[in-house]
Each structure stands twice: as structure tokens, then as C-alpha cells.
């Protein structure tokens, strides 16, 4: 299980857009580097990340080798109902990670 965090505002107004911020701990190894012995370091990146809000998918990203280590992603979602924001991501080796936060819609 990979370490990651998600942040949403404490409370939001119905119909307003709010920011969802995600940070994931991952080396994002490009596959283009070599170690001190000259051996190629195999590629290892988080390539999929998706966000659901109250069970419905609202955001999806496919990441490539150009993204820095410990990727930070922020996006906006329109507040409808109080409910969970759930982030799920996986890397090219099948390792998975999850993080969630509750949105309180006033």
C-alpha cells in the first residue's frame, strides 16, 4: 500500500467548485537513468490515478515519465452532496494506493 494524502476544504457551499489536492509518495523512476554500476534502472511510475465523489468518477489522470517524484495533483470539483472523495492510484507494477476525505456540503 502506497502512502498518499488528499485534502479538501472543511466545508463547501452547494454548487460551488472546491479544490481537491492529492500528493502521492512515489519515486517516479523514468527508466532513462543508470545506477553507479552503469545498469539501467527499470521504469517504475504511477500511471493511473482516479477520483470518485459520492461513488461517481469525477477525475481521471494518466501519468507519464515526465512527472516528478512524489506527484502533486490538484483539480476542482463542483459540490453537489455531502459525501466521500476517494482517490485511487496504481503504478506500472500493480502496486496500489488509496486515500479519502469527507466533503461537507452546506
Amino acid at each position, binding site marked *: 500500500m502506497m502512502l*498518499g494524502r488528499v485534502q479538501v476544504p472543511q466545508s463547501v457551499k452547494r454548487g460551488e467548485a472546491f479544490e481537491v*489536492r492529492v500528493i502521492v509518495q512515489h519515486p517516479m523512476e523514468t527508466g532513462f537513468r543508470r545506477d553507479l554500476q552503469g545498469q539501467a534502472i527499470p521504469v517504475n511510475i504511477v500511471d493511473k490515478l482516479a477520483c470518485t465523489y459520492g461513488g461517481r468518477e469525477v477525475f481521471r489522470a494518466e501519468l507519464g515519465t515526465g512527472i516528478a*517524484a512524489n506527484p502533486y495533483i490538484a483539480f476542482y470539483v463542483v459540490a453537489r452532496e455531502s459525501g466521500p472523495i476517494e482517490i485511487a492510484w496504481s503504478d506500472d507494477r500493480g502496486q496500489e494506493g488509496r486515500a479519502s476525505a469527507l466533503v461537507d456540503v452546506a
Partner: protein
Amino acid sequence: MTHDVMRHVAAAACCCAAALACASDLPARPQPPRNGSEFQSAEVRALQADDFANPMSLWISRGEALWKEPRGAAGKSCESCHGEAANAMKGVTARYPRWDPALKRVVNVEERIQACSEGAQGAGRFGDPSDELVGLSAYIALQSRGLPMSVSIDGPARGAFERGRSLYFTRIGQMNLACTHCHDANWGRRLYAETVSQGHPTGWPAYRNEWQHPGTLERRLRACFFGVRAELPAYGDPDMIALELYLAWRAQGLSMEAPGVRR
């Protein structure tokens, strides 16, 4: 001839005694003193100030979990002995490196963590460098944020301080540079794309974008050794801790900003 040599030795001994006794003989520090982050770009400073986006937050979560996790043969966590980090560790990093009466040497925070892990917890040493060690060290450093650096160089710590001070002014490597040539004589000027800082360790452990990873002050100092093309000392070398003590004294009064972000 012999008489001459003796006279020189006697004169040198007098100088040493005078240097030890007289505080005003200590080297001048850069004026005005400026924190490490002040030499970083606006983007890097913004990242450091943002507790969520600062990548160190991930390692701090790890460190916080480790603080509370019972480990080793003793089955004790850091918290079992020290209590809550917010109280027990407040201001601790600002006072390190310091003389440790139990270990009978000057240690930095990382060495102190290793000693606790090995001794009190019976869990052996963390890897060095490792995510666990830098995470715990960063979590402890966070409790000193905003407090002034205030190491003690009196009593038994004095030997390490003098060693660190002499290292700071000693030319090393193929570039034949000492710390002082960049961080006293040329701070604020450009070195390729980088602005040379005053060399104050207030933001460490920090996330360094170049590494794409956090690291301890020791790792940062090794990068300077590499930069002047000098031989890298081993991790935990007493000389490196002596140098850390000198740097901490040099930064006295500046407020701690660890866990920082650096270019």
C-alpha cells in the same frame, strides 16, 4: 636549534590557550544573517510554506507513525519514554548537535535516534540513509519550527566545535576550496543557476528537488564535498558531526524552518 623549536612550540601553545579562552576570537559570521530559504526561488519558498504540498509532509507522516509504533525487543515506542512529541521534542533540533553524556561524544539528531533505536528499543539501527531515519528526524525537527538555533559549544562540546571550525576553513578537493570561500566570501552571488547561500542549516532535514527525495544535513554536506571534488567521508564520520556543530553555532539566533525545501 632545539631551543628555537621549543620556543615555537611554547608560542603555539599560548596561542591555542588564548583562542580557547577568548570568545571574541571566534570567526565573524555573515551579516546580516539570512535563512537558507531566502536564497531560494519564490516557487521553492511557496512549496516549503505549504504544509500539504511540501513533499516532506509524506515523510513526516511516516515519522509520526514511527514515533508511536512499538518496536524492537523492548516493544517500546519513542512515545513510551518521551511522551508526546509536540511537548517533548519542542526545541530539541535547535539545540543539536550536542554533547551526549551517555554516548560520551557529540551527536546530531540522527545519531541520537540511532542510539535510542539500538539501545532503548533494541531494534537495531535504521539504515543510513533511510526513509525511516529521515522521517523521524524531520518529524522531530518540525517541533522546533520557528525557534532560534541555540547550540552549546561549551564544556565537552568544545573539542568538536574547534574541529568543525578548522574543517570549515580548510581547503579540500580538486577545486581546492574551503566552506568559507563560498559561504562567507561569496554568499548572495550566482554559481551557475544557484545563488550561493550563507550555509545555515536551519531548514534541514529538507526535500531537495535535485534529489527528488528528502535528505539529512549530512547528505547535503556530502553534496558540497562532491561539488568541490573532495573525497566523501563515511556516513556518521565524527568530522561531519563536528562540521554540523560549527554550522549550527554559526546559525545561532536564526529561526528553524525545517522541514525545508531546497532546489
